[in-house]
């Protein structure tokens, strides 16, 4: 009984040792078996990740190295420089009258100048977009140019938001009207430029007319003198002569005027 007991115990113990051996053995092989696919997967995913991150980084780098659509935004620089200006340092006065802060009105003016430049840029972008799209579809321009354009558009969006926020910080609801004001400023500037162009013609026109009138007068005087010498000239003929002189005088002057105008256009 004891023996059997012992044997059973033995067997059980041996059994258990066998069990423990068996249970510890297969997991080991299981893990070692797993290492291969895991290794495979890590290498695969790792290489994919490395490739994608490298690719993305390169792409970003290329995008960043693209020339920006517009030149430097001077007005924005001035505005931000004013914001960061240390007034005591910047004011030129000798001690007795140092500014405590940059005047608000100056900052507002700088902000409006910035909005004006933004409007001009937006107008430029809107004008360029359809033409650029057509050119891109026909393959006349490269993709790079399009990328630059898209980036400029996105930057302008950010810039406009930024300006609106700044304007609202100065005065409630100014953000809603600052771009309206800037737009009118832009229109007025264009109007004044055009008016100046037209007014610039005045001096030339006046000088031309002075010369022309003097020419007509002297021609007329000659005509009168010529008329008084041969007294037998019929009055009907003089009137036709007069006409001819006028047309003659008009011919070269007219051409000159036309040429001048063409040159200006």
């Amino acid at each position, binding site marked *: 009984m004891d023996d059997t007991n012992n044997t059973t115990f033995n067997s059980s113990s041996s059994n258990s040792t066998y069990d423990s051996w068996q249970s510890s053995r297969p997991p080991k092989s299981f893990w070692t078996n797993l290492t291969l696919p895991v290794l495979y997967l890590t290498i695969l995913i790792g290489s994919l990740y490395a490739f994608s991150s490298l690719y993305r980084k390169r792409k970003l780098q290329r995008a960043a190295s693209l020339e920006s659509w517009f030149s430097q935004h001077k007005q924005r620089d001035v505005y931000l420089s004013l914001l960061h200006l240390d007034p005591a340092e910047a004011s*030129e006065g000798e001690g007795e009258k140092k500014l405590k802060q940059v005047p608000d009105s100056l900052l507002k003016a700088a902000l409006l100048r910035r909005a004006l430049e933004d409007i001009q840029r937006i107008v430029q972008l809107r004008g360029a977009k359809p033409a650029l799209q057509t050119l891109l579809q026909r393959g006349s321009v490269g993709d790079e140019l399009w990328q630059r354009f898209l980036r400029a558009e996105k930057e302008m969006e950010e810039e406009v938001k930024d300006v609106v926020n700044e304007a609202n910080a100065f005065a409630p609801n100014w953000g809603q009207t600052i771009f309206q004001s800037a737009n009118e400023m832009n229109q007025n500037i264009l109007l004044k430029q055009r008016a100046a162009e037209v007014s610039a013609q005045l001096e030339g026109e006046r000088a031309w007319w002075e010369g022309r009138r003097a020419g007509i007068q002297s021609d007329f005087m000659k005509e009168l003198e010529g008329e008084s010498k041969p007294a037998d000239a019929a009055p009907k003929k003089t009137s036709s002569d007069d006409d001819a002189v006028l047309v003659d005088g008009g011919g070269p002057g007219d051409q000159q005027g036309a040429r001048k105008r063409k040159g200006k256009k």
Partner: protein
Amino acid sequence: MDETFTLIPLAIDPSTKSISTSNPALSSEIDELNKLHRAFVSLDTPNQVPPPPAPVNPKRSVQINKMRESGNASYKKGSYGDAIKMYDLAIRMASERPGWEASGLVREELSALYNNRAMAQMSQQMWPEGAVDAELSVEMKKVGNVKGWWRRGQCLREMGRVEEAAEWVRGGLEFERAGPEKANVGELEALGRDLEASLAKA
């Protein structure tokens, strides 16, 4: 671009509050800014920001109208020199409106004033001045401005530039036949016919 900017060395004059820079490339920009700043300082709106363009401050419009009226009165009396002077003043007043006021209004005012000045100049036989003023008037307002088109055509004709005048009137007719002053286009048409006739004769 978003978080960076180029710091520009700027200096402020403490008494006039105008800024200056040592960078010559920026000097024109700084000048413009100082000009705009002066306009800001004289603003009397709350918060000292420019008002929206829609309702315009009527003070200046009233003054301009007054000047135009007195110019018209002098013209009717026959003192064309005085009329031209008044129109000059009104034009200066209208073009010195602050930049952010409605540009449509500026166009309208200047167009009428240049037109009137052209008329006064034509009465004094100042053809080149009249021609330029009429062109300015047309430039400000192309449609609904039969008088402007007619006046420049007439001035050019008086100066003997018939061909140019005919071309000008043709252009004017194209604009005006479709415009709101269709009914008054007859005078311009008559001028055009005259010009074509004298061209055909020459």
